[in-house]
């Protein structure tokens, strides 16, 4: 087979065309910042640092893509939510001062301009810089928060969990706002040149099948369809145990379903059908960080066996910052040593 570059490999794999090896797309953020000796605060707030970190990881460890993700607070922060920025770890929402602590604020809340100089704009600048430096060699992935995760950021995650029962209409209105904001942000990312948008919907793993069916799935579907209408591809990642929702996730139509380690890949394959591209899902702490390189490779082989040919090599979630480099190299080594 002719040699292909990383971007061509991922795109061919997503389209079901032959590839020379499996694509490799684990999530790195803090690991990337540490690799270039950057403070995480700078990685998350200065697009040049993020680009440098992502490119170094991709080059040093043979990853096929770069991404713009750093923390879940970009969109909420631009909305005016209180965000705590730590010196060397990811920014986090301050729930006690949640922007929508008072529900009536939602009716007055405006979608911020992604080009308005905030942290969303910073992401867009990263995409532009990736374009200049990569010149089509690696796949560029942007990022938006999913409806449940973004709603949790704006309302407070504990309060949102009660809102599902206390005020269902408010939740629907809030999810509507979150999808509209994600699509507005995504439109600019597509214009800046991303090949794919990652959707992170972490809080969605906290609710059960009933709430997933009634609230989460319809808005995730609206988001995924909206992203496709923008002409981009979609990777969905939900931190935590999504075993109860695998069939629904399979009906979203995502180009890549990126599963955390608690969701069995074999079940996902059975429920989502043979065509769904699955990514993951080696336990990031117990295996990727705490085990030996050969154990990482064995775990990847197991994932590959369960997922079958429509598989992308990755961990269940972010590769932890203090993971031994040889364990991170194991991802690309596995991909090179096995055929899809």
């Amino acid at each position, binding site marked *: 087979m002719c040699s292909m570059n990383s971007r061509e490999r991922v795109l061919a794999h997503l389209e079901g065309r032959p590839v020379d090896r499996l694509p490799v797309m684990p999530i790195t953020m803090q690991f990337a910042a540490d690799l270039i000796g950057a403070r995480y605060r700078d990685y998350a707030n200065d697009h040049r640092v993020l680009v440098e970190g992502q490119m170094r990881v991709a080059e040093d460890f043979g990853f096929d893509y770069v991404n713009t993700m750093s923390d879940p607070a970009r969109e909420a922060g631009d909305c005016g939510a209180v965000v705590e920025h730590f010196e060397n770890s990811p920014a986090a929402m301050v*729930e006690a001062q949640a922007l929508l602590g008072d529900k009536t604020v939602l009716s007055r809340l405006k979608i911020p301009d992604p080009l308005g100089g905030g942290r969303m704009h910073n992401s867009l600048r990263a995409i532009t810089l990736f374009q200049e430096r990569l010149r089509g060699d690696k796949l560029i992935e942007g990022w938006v928060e999913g409806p449940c995760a973004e709603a949790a950021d704006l309302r407070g995650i504990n309060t949102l*969990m*009660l809102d*599902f029962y206390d005020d269902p209409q408010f939740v629907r209105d809030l999810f509507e706002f979150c999808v509209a904001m994600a699509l507005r942000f995504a439109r600019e990312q597509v214009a800046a040149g991303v090949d794919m948008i990652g959707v992170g919907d972490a809080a969605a793993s906290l609710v*059960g099948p009933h709430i997933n069916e009634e609230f989460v799935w319809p808005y995730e579907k609206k988001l995924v369809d909206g992203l496709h209408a923008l002409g981009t591809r979609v990777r969905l990642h939900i931190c935590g145990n999504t075993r109860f929702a695998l069939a629904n996730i399979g009906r979203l139509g995502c180009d890549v379903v990126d599963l955390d380690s608690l969701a069995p890949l074999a079940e996902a394959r059975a429920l989502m059908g043979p065509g769904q591209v699955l990514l993951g899902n080696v336990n*990031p702490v117990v295996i990727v960080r705490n085990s030996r390189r050969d154990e990482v490779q064995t775990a990847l082989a197991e994932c590959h066996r369960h997922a079958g040919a429509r598989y992308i090599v990755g961990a269940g979630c972010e590769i932890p910052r203090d993971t031994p480099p040889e364990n991170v190299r194991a991802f690309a080594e596995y991909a090179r040593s096995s055929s899809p």
Partner: protein
Amino acid sequence: MIDMKPLYEAVLKGDAATARALTEQALASGMEPITVVKEFMVPAMDEVGRRFECNEYFVPELLLAARAMKAALELVRPLLVKSGVEPQGRVVVGTVRGDLHDIGKNLVAAMLEGGGFEVVDLGVNVTPEKFIEAVKAKNANIVALSALLTTTMPAMRATIEAFKAAGLRDQVKIFVGGAPITQKFADDIGADGYSENAPGAVTLAKVHAARAA
């Protein structure tokens, strides 16, 4: 004798108003406060925990039940204190320094409270010094540390070391939990216990309380 099964059901379903009203009725009818807690509220929260572990309940349902339990407990607690009834144990809970994530910690606090423990919730981003102050002030015998991030896991070790330095390590059992935490990590840092979920944390605390009794 009034029928209190509806109180059990109200807590289970997360109906705070009904739980509170039924508790008021029970106390007015002369039922002992400790009976309300032990016969109805604790069993209801035990069932909530069982359903959570079996994936019949998820986080919203658990928080809803905890809210109902708290609404009823607010009426009962002052009476228990007045009559000198001791809780199963006193637990100081908090998310460790540098970490603002609290939903797991909140689930543990709610389940412990529902299990008959007195809970002092210090919130998030809690320094070792604050944990120590709270243990001293409340004469607590259990400390429950939570962390969601791998980057804040070292703060658990630092907290345990601070208890050693303060000469309090032997007076408290220290339990740890959170998404990246493992039994091995708990062992490595010298914690007394680890649980992967909130009901498990209650079991750990109850085992400790039984041994201490």
